[in-house]
């Protein structure tokens, strides 16, 4: 039923009509091999369902790392007309502004002599709380003012606690703050769930990864990003923690109850949505922006803890010289202009990838394009990409966000033993710290698609270009 037809070497189409109510076609960036893997789950059905959203523009889009989610597929993109379209909380996801921040250390891999490699990963695991509920979940940054964080994002940590810098704010997507954030739109339960979680990693696929730059593909862009072969980097993957999850829960429920009022029919309740110009839509955008600001503050606090770890093991100079390359969101809805039209771009497991010269790129990266970070898995490479003009022409300024799962958690646990996986990774020089063998197994490299293939597709499609490849040498799992 969902066999897409080939448009070109990297693009496939599910025509209007495959699901009742489709308003636009669905388009998928992939090659034949990736498509075969993607077709194993409900991703394509979910993508076609997205095409039913009122006001959706051009097409429902999917990146090559697409996999089955809930409502929207992970790796999905939908732009809705700002004048008569909707906003869908499920199109952003529960972990609002889940994203990644890359830090570059002023050291080369071969400077981690003796036991410093092991000690650095251990120190990172000791200073960064992991997990969801209970112990470890609420050991966040002391003194953070939640109201100010929801309004201002990481700027609140800079002004109140001296954490971060103006430079880091400038090197964060949207400056680390979405306009229109309103803390009063965030429920009491969301606040309760988020209390004490600023500076905590979370669980599931969240991680800290210590890496070395293994290869550089575009020398000028790498130089602009401050990356050179052999250099140490730290990739931080986390989001808005319990607060973001509750914001999404609250608004999926609220909008689900108001669909009839707005005259909207959907194939899946998780796609629940409301017109952008309705009170329901506006309130969601206010709360979502607040949660996104919380997530940026969370990653800023995590970066602070990384620097503390670096200082404890490698000294003050190394910590002071650790610079933020950039910070990007994977789950967010933003009002942007594309093709002369104002739209609300939902990116659910997808990354903004603006090309060189775009006004929202920091001046130091203007010639290179916006940095994009694509985590692989614990045992495989991650990539630094840069946005390219094709993203503006084909995907509302968007590219992929990771390798994309291909196996369920249950399936991977049946084939991978967490303790054995840890031994294998450590035999390859990757120091692992994880709270449970089960959780480690669920995030095994075998659970994910081939990240090299995913990145190759987005590059061939002109959405983003490879700048550097990062090889993991230490992993702290959430």
């Amino acid at each position, binding site marked *: 039923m969902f066999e897409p037809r080939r448009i070109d070497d990297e693009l496939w189409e599910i025509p209007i009509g495959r699901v009742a109510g489709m308003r636009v076609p669905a388009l998928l960036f992939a090659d034949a091999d990736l498509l075969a893997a993607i077709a194993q789950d409900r991703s394509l059905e979910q993508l076609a369902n997205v095409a039913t959203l009122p006001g959706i523009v051009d097409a429902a889009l999917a990146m090559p790392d697409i996999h089955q*989610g809930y409502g929207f597929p992970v790796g999905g993109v939908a732009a809705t007309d700002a004048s008569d379209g909707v906003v869908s909380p499920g199109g952003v996801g529960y972990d609002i502004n889940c994203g990644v921040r890359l830090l570059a250390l002023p050291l080369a891999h071969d400077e981690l002599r003796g036991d410093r490699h092991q000690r650095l990963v251990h120190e990172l695991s000791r200073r960064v709380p992991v997990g969801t509920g209970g112990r470890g979940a609420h050991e966040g940054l002391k003194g953070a003012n939640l109201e100010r964080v929801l309004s201002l994002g990481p700027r609140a940590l800079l002004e109140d606690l001296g954490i971060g810098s103006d430079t880091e704010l400038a090197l964060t997507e949207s400056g680390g703050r979405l306009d229109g954030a309103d803390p009063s739109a965030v429920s009491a339960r969301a606040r309760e769930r988020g209390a004490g979680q600023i500076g905590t990693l979370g669980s599931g696929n969240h991680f800290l990864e210590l890496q070395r730059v293994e290869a550089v593909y575009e020398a000028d862009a790498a130089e602009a990003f401050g990356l050179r072969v052999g250099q140490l980097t730290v990739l931080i993957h986390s989001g808005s923690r319990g607060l973001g999850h509750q914001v999404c829960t609250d608004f999926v429920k609220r909008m689900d109850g108001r669909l009839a009022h707005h005259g909207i029919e959907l194939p899946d309740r998780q796609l629940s949505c409301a017109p952008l110009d309705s009170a329901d839509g506006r309130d969601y955008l206010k709360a979502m922006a607040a949660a996104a600001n919380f997530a940026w503050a969370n990653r800023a606090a995590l970066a602070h803890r990384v620097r503390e770890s670096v200082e404890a093991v490698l000294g003050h100079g190394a910590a002071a010289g650790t610079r933020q390359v950039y910070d990007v969101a994977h789950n967010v809805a933003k009002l942007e202009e594309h093709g002369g039209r104002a739209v609300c771009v939902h990116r659910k497991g997808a990354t903004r990838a603006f090309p060189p010269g775009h006004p929202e790129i920091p001046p130091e990266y203007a010639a290179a394009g916006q940095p994009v970070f694509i985590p692989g898995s614990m045992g495989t490479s991650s990539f630094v990409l840069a946005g390219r003009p094709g993203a503006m022409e084909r995907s509302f300024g968007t590219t992929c966000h990771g390798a994309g799962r291909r196996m369920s958690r249950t399936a991977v646990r049946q084939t991978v033993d967490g303790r054995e996986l840890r031994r294998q990774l450590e035999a390859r020089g990757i120091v692992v710290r994880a709270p449970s063998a089960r959780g480690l197994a669920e995030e095994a490299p075998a659970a994910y698609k081939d990240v090299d293939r995913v990145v190759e597709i987005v590059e061939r499609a002109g959405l983003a270009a490879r700048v550097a490849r990062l090889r993991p040498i230490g992993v702290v799992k959430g």
Partner: protein
Amino acid sequence: MTYRWVDHTAEVELEIESGSERGVLEDALLALAELLATENPGRPQELRSVVAEAADRPALLAAWIEELAFLAESEGFVATRLVDLDLAENTASATVAGVLDAPPPLVKAVTYHRLSFERHGERYVARVVLDV
């Protein structure tokens, strides 16, 4: 006990079949207890009140699991037994027994994706996808 976990690429999908609506909610509690179980036998049992509200039965099932998951996340309370349940059209009010524990960080949200809770002949069949 008639629930089963269904394969889902990234999340956890629960299917329940029971002879009564109460049975569906009870099985959901037992399934969550299985998911959150740790090996701490002998902990004293405690009681908690749980109230879930929603516009229809599928949403009520989601709200019920949300409340149980919130107890686990906020207090470390894992409900293991349904003591009593008052089930009205839009509300489930219950007393549940359980233990204070350190449940693993598993359930972050209860989704509405493919959410269902329907009567099929003499049986009730429900499905819910959990974000983990």
